[in-house]
């Protein structure tokens, strides 16, 4: 028998892993749509109208899964982790509360943008879309704030299992709010951009070079590479700051992320490899001397705390080193891909991308999604055994109900069903409504 806690964690982890795909694209895509709408206003090139229209359709379909899966995540928190939500309800209710308003703004104006588009003025359409993008962004930022609070709790005094001097606004502005929420928001824009780049590159391979459809997707690709490049760079800068926050507030998480056992100055940075508990080393890693100290505190003699300073039962799982590496590795690769693409197209003014590079671009979207999955699993597993750092243990917040295994299977089946149908429906729709049809319709209307 798997124990209750493990099944509860697996069930909730599965919900989040599923939801996060739709949620992240749901934050990233509105910015792409808004960019296309604005580019149309600037250039009057109807291709951008077609882009906005097709991305909106995709967005609407993904919301059909993202909204209910988000509802599941929100409610499942109370069902599986009643002890956690009791504490959050008392100390940190504001982000969830304010997120509702952001959610309402997104839902109201999404319907207005989609179903009232022809009846409202163009400027009102842009405003509606801006509110959709802002609502989506705000929801992501606010929900991430709860996650930030779990890592750097604030706004209360905790003695003998009781909370005193509760200040919900101090909890809201907990130390890692801005840096953590910023990371999630920026990386969502990265994902939105590279998912579009993936599709555009794939369609460029499928269509004849220089054809109407090819040129359409090439425009989409350039937009996504520019935005993807900017935001992946910003994500990296912010990520560096996030790591420094770990150094300050959750040293054992940073130690596990880097596979560092002994506290030391001039600490080396271990890239790759697998952390080994027995030998207290990262097997097969490339070690760069002194760099970890520098990254953690901007100087080589910064003392970085190692895992051995903590009792072993409070260590995060050691596999997070691999997840951390995957996230950082993919993030860096995406910066490189965007740079290469822009230089090739805009500076060298080359006519076409080499085929291998198009394949790399096709992979960039799925890679971006893998990176955020790794990032979230790293962030949440790395906090273990705590659900609220040094206040509430995950094991103490889990539901007392048993037989969660059946629920796990039920949710698993529904997620599989929805994953398959959403792909089938999208493919069906875009096969039936080809780019060429849309492009010709848009031209004849203009």
């Amino acid at each position, binding site marked *: 028998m798997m124990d209750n806690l493990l099944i509860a964690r697996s069930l909730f982890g599965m919900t989040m892993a599923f939801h996060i795909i739709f949620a992240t694209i749901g934050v990233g895509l509105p910015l792409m749509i808004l960019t296309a709408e604005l580019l149309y206003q600037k250039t009057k090139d109807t291709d951008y109208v077609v882009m906005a229209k097709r991305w909106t359709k995709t967005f609407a379909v993904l919301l059909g899964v993202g909204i209910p899966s988000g509802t599941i995540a929100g409610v499942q928190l109370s069902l599986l982790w009643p002890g956690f939500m009791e504490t*959050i309800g*008392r100390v940190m209710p504001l982000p969830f509360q304010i997120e*509702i*308003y952001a*959610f309402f703004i997104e839902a109201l104006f999404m319907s207005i943008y989609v*179903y009232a588009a022809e009846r409202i003025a163009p400027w009102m359409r842009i405003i509606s879309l801006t509110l959709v993008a802002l609502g989506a962004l705000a929801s992501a930022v606010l929900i991430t704030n709860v996650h930030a609070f779990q890592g750097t709790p604030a706004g209360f005094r905790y003695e003998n299992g009781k909370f005193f001097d509760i200040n919900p606004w101090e909890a809201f502005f907990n130390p890692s709010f801005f840096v953590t929420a910023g990371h999630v928001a920026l990386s969502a824009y990265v994902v939105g951009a590279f998912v579009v780049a993936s599709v555009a590159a794939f369609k460029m391979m499928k269509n004849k070079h220089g054809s109407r459809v090819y040129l359409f997707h090439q425009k989409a690709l350039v937009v996504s590479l520019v935005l993807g490049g900017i935001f992946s760079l910003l994500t990296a800068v912010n990520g560096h700051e996030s790591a420094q926050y770990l150094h300050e507030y959750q040293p054992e998480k940073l130690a596990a992320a880097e596979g560092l056992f002994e506290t030391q100055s001039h600490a080396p940075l271990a890239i790759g490899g697998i952390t080994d508990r027995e030998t207290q080393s990262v097997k097969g890693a490339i070690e760069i001397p002194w760099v970890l100290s520098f990254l953690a505190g901007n100087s080589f003699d910064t003392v970085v705390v190692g895992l051995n300073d903590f009792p072993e039962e409070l260590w995060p799982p050691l596999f997070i080193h691999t997840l951390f590496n995957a996230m950082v590795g993919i993030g860096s690769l995406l910066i490189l891909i965007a740079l290469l693409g822009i230089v090739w197209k805009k500076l060298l003014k080359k006519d076409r991308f080499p085929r291998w590079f198009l394949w790399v671009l096709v992979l960039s979207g799925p890679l971006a999604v893998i990176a955020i999955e790794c990032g979230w699993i790293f962030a949440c597993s790395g906090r273990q055994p705590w659900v609220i750092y040094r206040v509430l243990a995950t094991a103490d917040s889990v539901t*007392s109900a048993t037989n969660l295994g059946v629920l796990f299977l039920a949710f698993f089946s529904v997620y599989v069903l929805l994953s398959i149908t959403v792909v089938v*429906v999208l493919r069906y*729709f875009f096969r039936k409504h080809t780019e060429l049809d849309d492009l010709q319709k848009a031209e004849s209307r203009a």
Partner: protein
Amino acid sequence: MANELIAITILWGFVFIYSIMATMDFGAGFWSMIYLNREKTKATNIANRYLSPTWEVTNTFIVALVVAVYSLFPKAAYTLGTILLIPGSLILLLLAIRSAFLVFSNIATEYKKPLTYVSGITGILIPGLLISVLPISHGAFIDYRGGHPVLSLQKLFTSPSEYAFIGFAISSTLFLSSLLLADYSKTSREMDAYKVYLRDGKILGPLSVLMAFVIMLTLKTETPWLYTRMMEELPLLLTSLGFFLIGGLALFLPSYADKNIQGMPRIAVIAVTVQYFIASYVYGKAHLPYIVYPNITIQSGFTDPNSFMAVFATYIVGFAILFPGFIYFWSLFMHDKRYLRQKSR
């Protein structure tokens, strides 16, 4: 008014708004399935015209409701979360399938029929499960094992009052939504659809009131404390019944504006909403101070006072910001003749 009472009033407000919106939403989905093969009446089109722009907003209310529970009554949320694990999960699973297939059915038009059947059937089951939270909160189906509350599914599903509540939820869902769609199709000048929904309303109205009486009967034997306290407000219950009769009358009388058309569905919608409002007030008042009988009261479940003040402040600011948005939304989808009287596709 004490903070606890303000908080439970806010929560009750959310429950009421969501239950009205959800009945319209799930009901419209069900009707759109029922009339799928009767293309001439446009009854399906009318249901979809209402449903397409509103379902996301309606869905937001259920999240708002859950968030209100744990930010206003966190200790009650602990018990509710524990005992509602199974019914709550079932609702979530059905809701996920329902929403997704609702969207898919509008996108993959060739497969509209099977997709609409899935969303229509899962949708009509949800109100029945949602309302089960009420009989569960009466406490009789909760066992305590080692200090932890456990919901006994066997006791729940062998109880007549559970089935009375389920029947009431489903008939009310169909009743309210047929009234709304009657009004909606009348404003849209789809008279064939109007006649269909008017007829449905006339049948389902008496049925849902009958189910309400059945609930009272089962409460009398199963939950006497609640029954006695509800009957203390008998004048209000009778007023509620009066509004039902006004609503019913409005369906049969000729229209005030046009004598050739039978029924004033707008008045019926308003009267019946008032009917439910009064009835739910009586139920809620009798339920106090218990959130979950007998251990969790609004006092024992209440949040920290500082947190309450902060949350309350966000309600006021949030409402002020959102209100114009809701008005604009309403004017575009409930009021704009260009949307309502569009040619049906």
